[in-house]
Structures are given as structure tokens and as C-alpha cells.
């Protein structure tokens, strides 16, 4: 066990996987200079063939990852910031998502694309997107959003070992967080399994990525008022672990879903829809989503930061679902 930061946990996972399997290689922009700290020591250990700085050509190198994986290599693409996936949307949607399908199973694409959710830091709208919901709607892609070092480490390993294309979104608001992570180079967190981060009985808070620690902090605050919150972390968005989420909903009957993505068609929306479809009878209140509203992120920090999910909003949402029966018809607060 070692107490690692989120970024170090990622570094160790991809390092150990590259050592374990020489078919694994990594490419992306600014990896040699180690722009985010996830490739320290890689060039020295693995050499320039397997640690490649690319030109700024995302459609090119992400498409190349598809091709490389189809002939048996196992690429990790580090796309740096998630907005940089956009130039590659055709290779992602037409090639990566669909090749196995359109060729009737003849193609196998064991690739991983990693990028960070770079928001909350005055980087203005173009750099601050959280685009995992866009890719959730594209069959053929596995989507992971780890919420801490341990999950990041184990999920990345699972992703590299998986024979399907996997996209991992690393929430940059988590970069500084530290957690105990096993030293085991075979430590794997199963893809498609959610995790109950905190057990509780009054309300289920499903939280995604960087919202998980905020949800846990909210739970702590609410516990002071005797409210018992269960925090469920899906970890994998596609395929979603319906069973774990629904089990919690059936226990508590009240749900708040917290997601740093924009409200419309957020992961929170999909989770809410599934809960209503499958566990309507268990619900004692409407589901409330706590998301970033449907506007872009401004540069100016004072007006950017309040837009993301935070403790105040989660606590407020939890109280609303608890007070549902007593809520006045014209509540001053609409969507939280």
C-alpha cells in the first residue's frame, strides 16, 4: 500500500502495464515533458518507440490508435484535455465505436483513450468541457470516470487489459487528492461495477467523478443533522451498474444525482431515467439532479466556480427530497 495522489496512481498503473505487456505503448501531446505528471520516467524506461509525443493531430493519432489496436498493439492515447477529443470525433464515432460491429466481429480494438476534465480553473469555456455524456450515447465505447486514486489506478489497469475501446475521463479537481493504493501490479477494479463509497439509509446520492468527494463532504455535514446519506459512485458510466444503484434506491427511496456535466443529457439524466423506469415504486420523492447548468463556463473565477455542483447545492437537494411531502407547491427553488 502507498498513499498516492490521483496523478501518481495513474502514472503507476500505466507504467506497470507497459512493463507487463510490451504491446502496450503510449502516445499523445507533451508526454515526454510530462505535462501533467503521468509519464515520469517513461521515456527512460520504455524508449521513444513506445512513448511517443505526437503532433497536434488528434483525429490523426486517435485514428492511428484504432489502426494500431486492430493489428494487435495496445495503445494508450493521452489526449491531455477532454476538449481535445473533438477534432477526433469522427475517428471515435465512425471507427473506434463501430469497427467491430460493421465488420461483423472481425475487428478487435484494445485501446484506451485518457483525458482530463479540466474545469473549475478559469480556463474558459473551450477548455472546460466535460464531454463524457456525448460519448455515453455512442454504443461501442466503455466510459470510465474514477473518483479517486485507488479507482483510477485499478480502472486504468482494467481498461488497458480490456480488449474493447475504453475512454477514461480523469477529473482534474481530483488531481491533488491522496489515497491508499495497493502496490500490487495486478490490482484491477472491475469495469462496470459501481462502489458504495458511504453507506446510509435516508437518501441515495449518486455522484460522478469530482462530485464524489463533494458528496461525501455533504454527507458529513448532513450527518450532523441526523440525516444518513448513502453515496454511490458508478465509476463506470458505460456499462452502468444498474444493480448497485437500484439496490441503494430501493433501500432509501430518495435520490439525488450529482454530475459536473451540463444538465441536459447528463450522465445524471440517464441514471435518473433508469431509476424511474426500474424502481418507481420505491421512490418517495422526485429525483433531483445537481449538475452544471446549461450555459458555458465563463473565465472570471467568481462567476465560474458557483456553477459547478458544490456542497451547498447537494445539501439543498437532499433536504428537498426529504421534505418532498411537506414542500409547498410554489417552492422558491426550482431545479437545484
Amino acid at each position, binding site marked *: 500500500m502507498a498513499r498516492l495522489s490521483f496523478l501518481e496512481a495513474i502514472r503507476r498503473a500505466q507504467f506497470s502495464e507497459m512493463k507487463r505487456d510490451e504491446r502496450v505503448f503510449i502516445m499523445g*501531446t*507533451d508526454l*515526454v*515533458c510530462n*505535462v501533467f505528471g503521468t509519464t515520469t520516467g517513461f521515456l527512460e524506461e520504455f524508449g521513444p518507440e513506445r512513448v511517443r*509525443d505526437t*503532433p*497536434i*493531430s*488528434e*483525429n*490523426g493519432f486517435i485514428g492511428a490508435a484504432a489502426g494500431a489496436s486492430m493489428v494487435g498493439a495496445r495503445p494508450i492515447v493521452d489526449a491531455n484535455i477532454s*476538449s*481535445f477529443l*473533438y*477534432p477526433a470525433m469522427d475517428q471515435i464515432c465512425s471507427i473506434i465505436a463501430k469497427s467491430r460491429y460493421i465488420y461483423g466481429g472481425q475487428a478487435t480494438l484494445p485501446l484506451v483513450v485518457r483525458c482530463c476534465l479540466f474545469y*473549475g*480553473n*478559469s*480556463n*474558459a*469555456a*473551450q*477548455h472546460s468541457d466535460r464531454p463524457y455524456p456525448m460519448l455515453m450515447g455512442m454504443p461501442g465505447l466503455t466510459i470510465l470516470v474514477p473518483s479517486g486514486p485507488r479507482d483510477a489506478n485499478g480502472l486504468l489497469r482494467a481498461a488497458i487489459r480490456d480488449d474493447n475501446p475504453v475512454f477514461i475521463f480523469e477529473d*482534474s*479537481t*481530483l*488531481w*491533488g*487528492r491522496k489515497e491508499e493504493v495497493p502496490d500490487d501490479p495486478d490490482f484491477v477494479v472491475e469495469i462496470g461495477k459501481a462502489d458504495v463509497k458511504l453507506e446510509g439509509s435516508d437518501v441515495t446520492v449518486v455522484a460522478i467523478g469530482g462530485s464524489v*468527494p463533494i458528496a461525501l463532504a455533504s454527507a458529513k455535514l448532513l450527518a450532523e443533522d441526523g440525516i444518513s446519506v448513502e453515496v454511490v459512485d458508478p465509476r463506470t458510466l458505460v456499462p452502468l451498474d444498474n444493480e448497485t444503484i437500484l439496490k441503494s434506491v430501493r433501500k432509501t427511496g430518495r435520490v439525488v444525482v450529482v454530475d459536473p456535466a451540463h444538465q441536459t443529457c447528463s450522465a445524471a439524466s440517464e441514471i435518473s431515467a433508469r431509476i424511474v423506469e426500474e424502481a418507481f415504486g420505491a421512490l418517495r420523492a422526485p429525483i433531483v439532479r445537481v449538475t452544471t*447548468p*446549461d*450555459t*458555458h*463556463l*465563463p*473565465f*472570471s*473565477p*467568481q*462567476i*465560474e*466556480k*458557483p*456553477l*459547478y455542483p*458544490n*456542497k*451547498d*447545492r447537494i445539501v*439543498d437537494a437532499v433536504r428537498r427530497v426529504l421534505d418532498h411531502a411537506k414542500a409547498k407547491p410554489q417552492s*422558491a*427553488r*426550482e*431545479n*437545484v
Partner: protein
Amino acid sequence: MTQLANDQALEFFRRMVKIRRFEERAEAMHAQGEIPGALHTYSGQEATGVGACMALRNDDFMVGNHRSHGHPIAKGAKLRTLMAELLGKETGVCHGKGGSMHLSDFSVGSLGETSIVGSGVPVAAGAALGSRILGKDQVSLAFFGDGAANEGAFHEGCNLAGVWKLPVVFLCENNGYAVSTPVSAAMAIENVSVRAAGYGMPGEVVDGQDVEAVYECVSRAVTRARTGGGPTLIEAKTYRYGDHAANMGRLLLDRGSEVDEWTKRDPIVMFRAKLLKAGHTEELLTEIDSEISEEVDEAVKFARESRYPSLLNSFDDVLTRRVPVPAYFANLPEGYQVEADENAVSLFGN
């Protein structure tokens, strides 16, 4: 003073110094934490920006990139609304919505400084297209870097301009590096400009540190565009003194003594010497220096005294019409702040 003030050479000098002073000040304020987010400084590239922008009319269009500050200043924008934008104030040129990577003054012909590498190239081609469709004679110019020349958007924008003979000038500010990647690792050719042949347009290399050479080269391209001769790809060989972004706490790339070598050919120092040789006095140039220092000071004062936008301004300008504001946000008290996260890591040293 009035006669000389109209002298173009002095204006080249004035704008280059303005950019340099602005960048020095911005970098210092950023280091102090007064400017949030990332700061990509233009120091070293002044001759390219100024030479190019002064070859354009005020109503000609310009698109740029994240290394944005030099472009609006080169095209004659006032400093105060640029500085206010860096501080995220409501009086900023983008009302605090864009920040450093988007210093765009549409009143001097900007169509935006966009921070996704290469994304401005099709826009510039499109502005040229629009100008033609509307029967106007406005030309557009795209600023982009060596890194952007490897994006698909560059290829497609150039090809479109070539096949439709659009009135656009593509200006590559080749400063040798894309973040930490040197050009030699990003492309198999020496000069981006050779790609012009692939788009059926002339391609030219120019010394980006020589403001008059840039002006002359871009002027020819602008004339070609305006008279129906189609697009040109110009590659200015230039250099940024700073690392990709300022105050990161560590250098993404240590270029060592190379920076000193380029400093020996500082565009402003070289041009200053030229002006003196041409008969302008030391006093005049010093006067210009101090005028600009005052202008920068005034811009900083203006920026500092300006108010921040309010939270509801976050919902402005998604569309031409208002988007719904969730009542939660509408009901938050003025000046509402979120608790800082003690685990938050900033990439920037401040």
C-alpha cells in the same frame, strides 16, 4: 509630434513596445495571482503581429489563437479593455467571459482568438467567403502556430481557400515549438510554407523578427487577396521568449541558451536601432516608451477599478436570446462565493 505621430515606422515601434510592456506587466500580475487561469505570452513575436496587422485595413478581419494578446494590440485595440479582460472584469473586451486566451476586440476587425489549436483557420477562410458573398472587399487573416499546421482544420481551411480562391492570408507564426514539441518532432518538413503548393496558393517564408519584412510580405498577400488573386500561406519564423505558458512553476521545456541567441535579434531592439539610424531621436523614442508605460499603467488602473461580472452574467450570450436561468442561481445573493477546495491543485505557480 503630430506629424511624426502619423509616421508608420513609429507606429510599428509603438505597437511592438506596447505589446512588450503589456506582456511584461501581465506576466508580473499573473505571478502575483491577480490574473487567473493560463497566460500565454507573446513577447518575442511582436514584429510578426504588428507587421501583419498593420498591413490590414481596420475593417479587414483577423482570427488568432490562445497566444492572443499581441494580435489585438497589433491591430490597434485599446489596452484598457484587454487588461480588464485578463482580470476577468465586466468591462473586459469579452465581459470577463473569455480571459487571456480570447483577447478579441471585434471593433478592430477581430473575429476572435480561439484557444483550440487550428480551429481559427476555417473561420478565417469563412470570413473571406462571407466577404465575397456579400460583395465586400474585406480580406481576412488567420494567425496560427506551427503546431496548428498539423491539425486537420488547417488542411481543410487552406484547401477550401485554395479551391474557392478566397481572399484570405494564412499566417503561420512558427516559433519552433508546440507546447513542448519542437517542429522537428512534429513534421517531416523544414518549412510549413511548402504546404501551400498542396493548396494551389503561393507560400513564403519571412523573417518574423523584422517588422518591415513582415509588413511588406503580408501587404503583398493582402493585395493579392483583395484583387481576386486568392489566398497565400506565409510562414513567419519567430520566437517566444516565454515557455508555452507563464508561471507554471516549472518549465515544460528548457530551451537553454537558445533563448539568449534569439534575444540577440530582439525585434524591438533591432527596430529601435533602425529608427535611430533613420534620423529619429533618442528623445522621441524615449518619449514613446514613457507614453506607453503610462498607457499600460492606466489600463491596469482601469482594470483594477472595474467591477466583476455578476453570476447572472454567466448565462449571457449563449444565444442571442436569453437562456433559462435555473431559479437556484437567480436567487443566490450578490457576491456569493463557493468554499475553496483545499485539495484543489492549480497548474499555475500562483
